[in-house]
Each structure stands twice: as structure tokens, then as C-alpha cells.
């Protein structure tokens, strides 16, 4: 009954904390600049001659790989470093409410960042006649991908009070989730292992599950994959936080 008001209060504080420090603005500028650079220069948006945002979404996992851990690294490590975790968890909230609230706030922040890429949507619609359904699916996939990486960053930030360590750990874990489905890696793996084994390994990759969204297909299995990684990471965050205090 008191669950949602509490979650909203914590999430509101968390989200405003981003904007009360320069972090939010630095992040947004860097994200938008890089997204533009990847799409138009590396992705060859104009050279493709297609009315699609393929070049934009293809780079998303790589962009998120660096930027999402940067957003998530402070979630719990900062609370532990400043001792505010003691303040927060002795207020009438349960640990899971606090975890969900903080996660949702950061996710909302990433959603704002994604929403601010709207000029590319306008550009592609002005230049040609793209399938906007595919673009929407691409955005949904990107948001889920961001949430997945964020939940991992949330977990690593609960492990340490040092933000740099939290960042690097999150980055390594996210990189792993990308690489196991990255074409050059899977081809290399298929030289040593049977194809079914490579497939199983690749099915743990965010790339494999992101592909569908990029093509405009919203598959329940992909949805389920992203949501279960998030659920697992947040649950583990709870276990980690409880263990710190259990001694």
C-alpha cells in the first residue's frame, strides 16, 4: 500500500541527483555526440542510401557498453561511501523497494537520453520514407538493452564503495554479454566447438537478442531474456546488500 509512494519518492530524489550535478549534462552531451558520430560517420548513414536507422541502432550496444556503467556505477557505491545507505535503509523502506526505485530512476534517465536522439528520427523521416514501426521496435530494444546493462552496473556498484571498480567490473561483464554473440567471436568458437554449443553460448548474448528488435521483430523470448537478466541482477544486488550488513 505504501510501496509505490516510497519508490516514487526515492526515484525522484535519485533522478534529481543526476541533474543537480554536472554528471547528467556531461553524459547527455557525450551520448548524443557519440550517437551522431557513430550513425553518420562510422555507420555510413548517408552512404547506405536506406531510409532506416539501422546504422544508428547497430552501434547502440557498443555505445551503451561504456556509457551505461558510467550512469550506474554510483547507484550503491556512492551510498556506501557517504554512509547514506544507513540513512536510506533505516527509513521505512525494504531493501528491494530501494533497489527497484534507484534502478527505475537511472533507467528513466537513460530513457531521457534515448528520447533526446529524436532528431535522427526526424531526419530520416524528412529524407525518406522509413518504416517507423521498425524504428519504434529499435527504440524498445535499445531501452531494454540499456536496462540490462544498467542492472549489471547496479549489481557491481553494490559490491564495492569504489566507483571506478564498479565501472570496470560492469564494463567487463557487459562486454562479455556482447562478445559471446559477436560474429567474429562466434566464428572463432565454432572452430573448436559443435555448432549447438556455440548457439547456446550465443543465446546468452545481448547482441543475439537485440538483433530481432533491430529488424522490427518484438519476440517474447527476447523480451524475456532482457527482463530475466535485469531481474537476476537486481535480485543479486539485494543479496549483496544484505550480506554486507549481515557480517
Amino acid at each position: 500500500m505504501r510501496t509505490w509512494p516510497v519508490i516514487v519518492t526515492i526515484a525522484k530524489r535519485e533522478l534529481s541527483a543526476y541533474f543537480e550535478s554536472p554528471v547528467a549534462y556531461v553524459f547527455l552531451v557525450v551520448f548524443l555526440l557519440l550517437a551522431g558520430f557513430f550513425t553518420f560517420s562510422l555507420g555510413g548513414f548517408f552512404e547506405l542510401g536506406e531510409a532506416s536507422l539501422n546504422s544508428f541502432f547497430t552501434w547502440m550496444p557498443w555505445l551503451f557498453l561504456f556509457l551505461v556503467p558510467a550512469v550506474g556505477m554510483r547507484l550503491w557505491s556512492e551510498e556506501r561511501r557517504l554512509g547514506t545507505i544507513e540513512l536510506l535503509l533505516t527509513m521505512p523502506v525494504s531493501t528491494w523497494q530501494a533497489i527497484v526505485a534507484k534502478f527505475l530512476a537511472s533507467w528513466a534517465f537513460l530513457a531521457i537520453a534515448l528520447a533526446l536522439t529524436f532528431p535522427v528520427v526526424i531526419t530520416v523521416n524528412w529524407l525518406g520514407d522509413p518504416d517507423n514501426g521498425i524504428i519504434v521496435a529499435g527504440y524498445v530494444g535499445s531501452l531494454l538493452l540499456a536496462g540490462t546493462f544498467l542492472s549489471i552496473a547496479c549489481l557491481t556498484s553494490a559490491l564495492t564503495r569504489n566507483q571506478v571498480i564498479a565501472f570496470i567490473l560492469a564494463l567487463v561483464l557487459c562486454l562479455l554479454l556482447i562478445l559471446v554473440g559477436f560474429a567474429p567471436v562466434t566464428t572463432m568458437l565454432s572452430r573448436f566447438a559443435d555448432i549447438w554449443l556455440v548457439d547456446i553460448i550465443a543465446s546468452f548474448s545481448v547482441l543475439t537478442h537485440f538483433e530481432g528488435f533491430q529488424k522490427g521483430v518484438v519476440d517474447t523470448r527476447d523480451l524475456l531474456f532482457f527482463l530475466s537478466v535485469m531481474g537476476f541482477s537486481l535480485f543479486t544486488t539485494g543479496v549483496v546488500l544484505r550480506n554486507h550488513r549481515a557480517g
Partner: protein
Amino acid sequence: MIKVENLSKSFGSNRAVDEVSFEVQKGEVLGFIGPNGSGKSTTMRMITGFYPATAGKVSVCGFDVSENPIEAKEKIGYLPESAPSYQEMSVLSFLNFAAEMRGLRGEQKRSAIRRVVQTCHLDNVLGQTIDTLSKGFKHRTCLAQAIIHDPEVLVLDEPTDGLDPNQKHEVRSLIKTMGKTKAIIFSTHILEEVEAVCSRAIIIDRGRVVANGTPEELKARSERAGVVIVTLLGASEASVKDKLTGIASLHRCEVRESGGGRVSVEAFPTSSSGIEAQSLAGRIAEIAVRENWKIEQLKTEEGRLEEVFRSITMPDTQSGKGAA
């Protein structure tokens, strides 16, 4: 209102709190004293539900902290050690956050914020970000957060740490006033604070409760409690000693100074309880009058909490010389 039963906490093989039990009623201010690392903060963290207890039970206003944590936490206001707060927030938005976390909305919230801003004297810094504040203001901001929902139980971990003497005085009188209607536990290193504010004190050492009583009771445990110091004029050492030894409630007497018709004596009573000591001083006065000695000084020592604290928490060096 606070009931702690056989509470224990281990970190690995290290027993930080060992079978601690006590109760605090409404209208009581309990002072928690003990050397650094004796388990004060750990005990408080278990009472407030931050640390789960390894064994034992805490109940706050009838709610078991481990079984009904939310209900129990609603009743508690907590000022953690070193008064943490969200550095990048302004004082006002921090208080807004704390009020909303306590379920206060609208006019209720605004009046609660007005009240704590007034009690903690924060009016001039409301718009400032917390990390630009001085230590005293940071501390009071965190204290304001603890009392914003007018809790029935207050747990304050070193509430006067890092404050200047005026602020210390203010916080003490605040605790004293609030103590009339709430149950308060606070920890401190400053023993005079205990005497000034507490209705009861607990000395905790190496995770165990080693003394529990009113400040007066604890002081009476001092070995100097009840000692009568008397300085007499026109008397000789031998006669004073001779006359005083006749008093029934006298354990022994020691001459501190003597010469030129001036004798200074410390008289130790048989027991340090208040009445015996009083009667001892009275008897000495009677004898002095009868023998026609002039009394220059006559005083009964109350006993010092500091001494009790040291003798209890440093058993090897009975009332040691160095500061604890």
C-alpha cells in the same frame, strides 16, 4: 518502548555485541557510553534495523525489528554516526525527501519542515547545498531529518560530535526537552553530557553491558564516592585521628596535610551509599564543634563518572593515570 533482549552480533569470528539486554521507557533518556569500538554503534544499528542481529531480539513500540521492520522503522528517528546526508542536495530538498519518505504530504509535510527548521536553526541555509555547509550545519540537517516525523523513539549516535560548545549545549537541551515525551537512546564520549542529560546510563565494553543505572548510581560506584574531605584549624594530627576513629561509619582516615595547627583529612566511609556519607560528614562536624576546631573546608565527594568509567572499562589499570 525499546526492548532489547540478549542481542548479539558477530562479524566473522569477531563478537561485536554480546548478549546485550536493556529497556527504555517513554520519558527516559538513555545514555550509551563506552570506549571506541565497544559495540555502541553496532547495537544502535541493530535497533534501527540496519544490521540484522546474529541472535536476540529488538522490539520498538511492540514491533519486532526483524519481523515487522517497516512498522518498527516508522516509529524510529535515527541520526547515524557522522551524520550522513546527500551532499548534492539542498537542505530544503533533503528535508522534503525525508518528510516524504515518512509518508508526510502537503500541509502536514510543510508544517513538519517548518518545525524542524526552527528547532534545528536551519532557516539561513535552507537553499544551500549540503556539501557547502559547515560540520555543525550538516549535523543539524541530519538531526532535523531524524525528528521530522516526530517519532516516538529516537536513536542518536554521537549527536554532539563535532559541534562547538554552544551547539553542544543546544543539542543537549533539545534532547532533554524531547526526552520528556519520547524514548531516547544516545551515545557519547562526553561523560558530563551523560550527567547533564540522561535519566539512565549504560556502560558498554567489548560488546557487553558492564553497568546500567542512573548517573548518580553509577557515580556512587566510584571508589572516591562518599569520601569526606575536611580541613580543620586549631587541631593536631594525633587528636584528629584519635577522635575520628571513634565514628562508627568511618572505614579509615588519611591525613593529607598537617602542620601549624592545620590538619587536612580524607575520611572514607564504610559504604559509599549516600546516607552513610552524609552522616559521616555530620559526625565529623559535630566532633569539630565539640573539640573547638575551626572548620575551613568540609565536603563530601560525589564520585566521578569518569573514574567509574575508567575503572570498569580498564580493569587492568584500576582508575589509571592516563586519559581513557
